[in-house]
């Protein structure tokens, strides 16, 4: 499905609460600790994520990729689809302005253009969200979930 066109002058940022992200080699891993859903970001997505952690304009994301990979086709569409996917899962939200203290360096670009890809894994959400006190069975304790919370 083709994503809806998004505006080029919106400030965007990663959601300030309940996200834990870690970039490891060619992949950025994100856990939404509120939902237990896990995301894997690959390609130029790691660099875009680091820009979004600092807050970025939508058009700034496109321009950064175009500038780095001048021959790459469909950069704008790839970035738009990526941003739309992040917004759909609530990983990125609109921002009024750049964050105070922004300026951390971006992740390293891959050597060749690889479209930004986000893969979503929700099959472990139940386990990641098990709360050892609130969700466990009274007698057996964590990690057994309370029967009424299964």
């Amino acid at each position, binding site marked *: 499905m083709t994503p809806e066109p998004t505006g080029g002058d919106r400030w965007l940022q990663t959601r300030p609460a309940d996200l834990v992200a870690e970039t490891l080699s060619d992949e950025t891993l994100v856990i939404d600790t509120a939902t237990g859903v896990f995301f894997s970001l690959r390609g130029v997505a790691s660099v875009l994520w680091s820009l979004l952690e600092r807050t970025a304009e939508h058009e700034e994301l496109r321009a950064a990729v175009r500038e780095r990979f001048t021959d790459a086709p469909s950069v704008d569409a790839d970035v738009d689809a990526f941003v739309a996917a992040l917004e759909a899962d609530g990983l990125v939200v609109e921002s009024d302005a750049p964050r105070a203290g922004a300026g951390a360096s971006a992740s390293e670009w891959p050597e060749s253009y690889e479209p930004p890809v986000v893969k979503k894994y929700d099959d472990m959400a139940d386990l990641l969200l098990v709360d050892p006190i609130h969700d466990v069975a*009274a007698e057996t304790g964590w990690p057994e979930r309370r029967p009424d919370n299964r």
Partner: protein
Amino acid sequence: MARTAPRQPVSAAERGGAVLAFLDTALDTLGSAVGPAVDDEVFAFRCGPTIVRIRATSARTGELRPFSHLPTVTPRTATHGDPELVVHVCDGPFPGADGRRPPSGFHRVRDARTFVAITDGPAIVDGLRSSEGRAISWIEDVAHAPPYTRFRPFAEIFSAWFPAVRMLLLHAAAVGDADGVVLLVGNGGSGKSTTSVLCSQAGLGFLADDFCLLEPGARPRVHSIYRSAKLRGDSAGRVPDVHAARGDRVDDDHYFLVDDDATIASAPVRAIIAVRPAPDATAAPRLEQVTRDESFRLLLPTALKVASGGDAAYRFWLRSAHAIAESIPAYTLDLTWDTARVVDLVREALR
């Protein structure tokens, strides 16, 4: 007629603050002459590169049996700077609270300094001040302590403290020998405990049936913490020589202790196996290697309790799981009741 102002609802943050303040008072008191001192140290053991000291003004020494297989440390032994956790174990009136009771209900709260988990029915408080390596484990009425507190004591405290010393509590079983173990991972009820007990009975060393400590690194190691095991009724009925005392059976679960001499305290991780019931119970058990990406996803939930250590623990676990998935072979094992073959396949993964 005088009108009273409407009562403002108490926010989660305010409730959390009250819970943390309550624990702070107790830990401060335990740090003074009122609380258990070095002379009250009843047991201390080494768990990998760390030392756990138990100080008790309580009759809860029965809770220490699951640790009896671990190398012991005597009180005041010099530890060469190894990280230490001191757990104050107590029951009766809550110490240091001037007669006040812990907040009722379920609470699990942390800030940069303190972690506390409170439950009731019976009232239990597990709290930790990470920076000082001091914790409290309190049960109001020890006669009503649920089996998990006797067979997996202090799990809340361990999960919150170990990330601070670069280790993680895993929800995994482990069997093998001192040269290497296989980590058995999987959801509750997938067969981890049954497989680990079967392997132990077949001669492999038992390191854990449900919880073990991971020390990440270039050669990741796991350390035993409990020698307890728990089998569900159907497994307990099929696995020979499993005898849970009447008081150690709860609903369908049978708790028991594995013999000291059948355990191993520590070993490098040689393989990971995700166990699961076979789709066809009459088929042969099947071992199949998985990709690095699949291995990572199988591993991720095993440190699900790292939430007790906050965001830093999550990041630590993401890096650790990623590194393990890169370097350690991983498999899925479809389980059936052809138990001899199941053990053979675990040995095959160890090779």
